């Protein structure tokens, strides 16, 4: 009886708390940044601080969304897959805020300065490319778009997320002045995710060729 009546506040289905919890958790640092900005406790250079923190959040959440499938592969758990979309969209939101902070606040929408940055500074160009690649993924994140594209095509399109993450890590590497520890950590995480997916691919190939016996 309890199961059949609509649950209070939470959506129906298993683990109804999971996605709302992930969405709220993802919003926490954004709210914290906004509150520190309003209270003037974002440090002496709040624009640079907000830029750095929003960019880092975008990268971390994108990597987290990419970690869902490998995590399922390694553990057999299915719950990570349910959080993937929320994590990816949260990462995209922070990437958008990061870009808006750069364009509207840091550069005060000085289009000439922005164009010059894009043309002459690889790290800005790489970051911008990463953002552009995220847009089609965010747009096609709804179930309706998935149906319209068909699963196979949708899946191929969403592999772009890996490219975005690579560009995001490069963007971070090019930005730091001297100490590359932090970007190296995220680069290593990304490499580990690639390694899991590669291992799965190799295993599948081997299984297929074993079944087919003569590969032609």
């Amino acid at each position, binding site marked *: 009886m309890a199961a059949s009546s609509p649950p209070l*506040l939470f959506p129906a289905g298993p683990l109804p708390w999971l996605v709302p*919890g992930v*969405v*709220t958790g*993802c919003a926490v640092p954004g709210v914290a940044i906004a509150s520190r900005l309003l209270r003037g406790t974002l440090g*002496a250079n709040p624009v640079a601080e907000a830029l750095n923190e929003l960019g880092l959040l975008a990268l*971390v959440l994108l990597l987290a969304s990419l970690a869902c499938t490998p995590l399922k592969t390694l553990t057999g758990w299915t719950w990570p897959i349910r959080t993937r979309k929320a994590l990816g969209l949260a990462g995209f939101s922070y990437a958008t805020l990061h870009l808006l902070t750069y364009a509207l606040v840091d550069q005060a929408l000085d289009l000439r*300065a922005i164009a010059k940055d894009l043309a002459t500074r690889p790290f800005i160009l790489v970051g911008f490319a990463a953002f552009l690649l995220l847009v089609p993924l965010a747009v096609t994140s709804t179930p309706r778009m998935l149906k319209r594209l068909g699963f196979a095509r949708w899946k191929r399109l969403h592999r772009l997320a890996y490219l975005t993450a690579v560009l995001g890590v490069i963007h971070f590497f090019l930005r730091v002045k*001297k100490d590359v520890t932090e970007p190296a950590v995220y680069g290593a995480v990304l490499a580990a995710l690639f390694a899991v997916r590669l291992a799965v691919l190799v295993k599948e190939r081997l299984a297929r060729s074993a079944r087919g016996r003569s590969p032609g």
Partner: protein
Amino acid sequence: MSRLPKEPPAAAITPEGLYLRRREFIKNAALFAGTSAALGGGLLGLLGSPRATKKAPADGTIPAQPRIEASPAPLYTVDEPLTPYDSVTTYNNFYELGLSKSAPAENAGTLRPRPWTITVEGEVKQEQRLDLDTLLGWFKPEERVYRMRCVEAWSMVIPWLGFPLAALVKRLEPTSRAKYVAFTTLRDPEQLPGQNRDVLEWPYVEGLRMDEAVHPLTLLAVGLYGKALPGQNGAPLRLVVPWKYGFKGIKSIVKIRFTEQQPKATWNSSAPGEYGFYANVNPAVDHPRWSQATERRIGEIRRRPTLPFNGYADAVADLYTGMDLRRSF
């Protein structure tokens, strides 16, 4: 014997279905709260926000610095609003005390500015080791308000206390072979724990051409805002060269060496394509990764144009006549 309380009326008893849902709701709510708290907390931890909120200095608890008597030097005072003391002392690049902007202020407690010895060596009349207080006794500190332009495209206006380097150079009597002056920061990982990590080659070294060193604008600073330098600003003695990027202003100096050859400066040798030996503020020569045409004055949101030689061109441009400042950046 205790008596059982009276049973509630049947109407007040929660129906079984609702009761079950209540438990389910509480469980869901608890798991929801746990998930969002764990994820939110984890993300805040990655941002290092606890560090930022911990920063005691912002609450006005920077250890009180002793006052220093100084006379104002109106000739060397720019008429621009001062950057607040809290910003000047909590937003620092001093890798020896940590890599973030707030770390130096948090970690400065390990640096002991007294007793302090300055070693003088190289092409000089007499190589010697000087107690800092002896050296400071020779000069009367003055207050000068300078612009400070960091190579990272932010800037401040700081009321320094100090004396012209020229006065010290004159007193030390370098030989005619001395073409440059090199400065070295204290090397002591106990006082400067950032030196435990090989981010840069320690100790930090900076240098000036002799004519730059004896230019009247070049200052050896012992304080700011009427008080002794806090550790994060380079206590007890630092260099201030207002027409050059901030990294030329070497902190916590223990050695002054006069040389015939151009000294190997730390950032310059670490990334020669990005940080030149001269490092004159120049809006026309960009850093390879960012523009130097504009800067953000700390405390302001909008960028402002960067001035050639940080606005000191009238005083110093002559030093570089005939030089290609694009090549010798």
